[in-house]
């Protein structure tokens, strides 16, 4: 979706306050961090949905709400959709499990990303130039706006991963992922800083076409 969260390249935010080390400003922020992380670990909802719900808000609210406070509305809504409200008496969420406090650290510490199921062979190869699609989807995507239509070089093939765009809408789907590099000039034009680039993971459906090498 074209949301305010997709802010790469925006002007006007000023200098970076490099001294801002604050992780949590109060206990309520600690609790909402933990409630959300535990909910994801317990399988109440997936992480892509959390991102989608956080970005799908009024842009002025997004900009004016402290970081952790933006999480609260998202968590409330996801539980509401799962039927857990003060008005209902529901206490079951299909597919979710409860992790007791004394089992949490071992699970966290030893987390491994499960092997994804296989897919047909990837379409693109390392060294090829590829153009990103120009389509803007109204739902969650991980292709930043500043790369739409841009051409980059496939630097690496990373494997098969959960496709965030699909999982955010509860569709389990996996895709090949490439690491693609774009020069500063390609993205930002003549105003770019010298000798800079952006490298990013690109799910295969984000690529519209192979581009013949110029020169």
């Amino acid at each position, binding site marked *: 979706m074209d949301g305010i969260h*997709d*802010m*790469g*390249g925006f002007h006007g*935010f000023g*200098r*970076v*306050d*490099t001294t801002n*080390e604050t*992780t*949590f400003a*109060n*206990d*309520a922020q*600690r*609790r909402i*961090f*933990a*409630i959300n*992380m*535990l*909910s994801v670990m*317990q399988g*109440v909802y997936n992480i892509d949905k959390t*991102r989608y719900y*956080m*970005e799908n808000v009024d842009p002025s609210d997004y*900009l004016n709400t402290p*970081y952790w*406070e933006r999480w*609260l509305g998202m*968590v409330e809504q996801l*539980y509401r959709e799962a039927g*857990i409200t003060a008005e209902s008496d*529901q*206490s079951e969420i299909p597919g*979710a499990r409860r992790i*007791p*406090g*004394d089992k*949490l*650290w071992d699970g*966290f*510490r030893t*987390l*491994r*990303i499960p092997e994804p199921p296989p897919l047909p062979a990837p379409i693109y190869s390392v060294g090829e130039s590829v153009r990103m699609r120009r389509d803007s989807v109204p739902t969650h995507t991980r292709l930043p706006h*500043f790369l739409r239509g841009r051409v980059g070089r496939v630097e690496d093939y990373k494997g098969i991963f959960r496709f*965030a765009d699909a999982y955010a809408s509860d569709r389990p789907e996996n895709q090949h*992922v490439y690491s693609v590099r774009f020069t500063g000039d390609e993205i930002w034009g003549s105003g770019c*800083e*010298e*000798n*800079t*680039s*952006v490298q*990013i*993971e690109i*799910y295969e459906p984000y690529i519209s076409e192979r581009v013949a090498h110029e020169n």
Partner: protein
Amino acid sequence: MSDQNHTEPPSDFALRVRALETLLSERGLVDPAALDELIDIAEARIGPRTGAKIVARAWADPDYKRRLLENAQEVTEELVDITGANVIVLENTPDVHNVIVCTLCSCYPFRLLGMSPGWYKSYAYRSRVVREPRKVLAEFGLTVPTSTEVRVWDSNAELRYLVLPMRPEGTEGMAETDLEKLVTRNSMIGTGRPLTPGEAGAS
């Protein structure tokens, strides 16, 4: 968990968080002890010292470094008691300086570096570091010569990045445990350099 600040009534935010936690624990959906545990993990058990151990070993042991760059997930566990899970290590060289960001939200290699600092999640950092990384790095006091490419890694999907900074000069023969003390968190994000032995001694 109680609100320790009694001079002001709790904010709407705090009241709503408490209401949510109460609802979820009364329905048996979350164990409040698991929430306490996660907060303790975030604040006390994970942090940049984990990443620093990995960097120092990579500086000291070329074979470890090679394996780390090839497949970090498989080798971080040799050294630290937490898996890197989906982490990729990016090596800084005289030709390339790597820096990480998440323009779309706040993805960060938190298993190896701990919770991200406020500036990493700021709109200024997220919007600007992809477009004018040299200016942003200068705000951190870091100047990268134009002969060195500044490569900005936008952590947009499943992988997380950890920068392997260049080993400082004058550290030949230093023990791994001393090398660890030179590794700053920002040097593993790409917004800083490791300390020199002189700076580490003075700090």
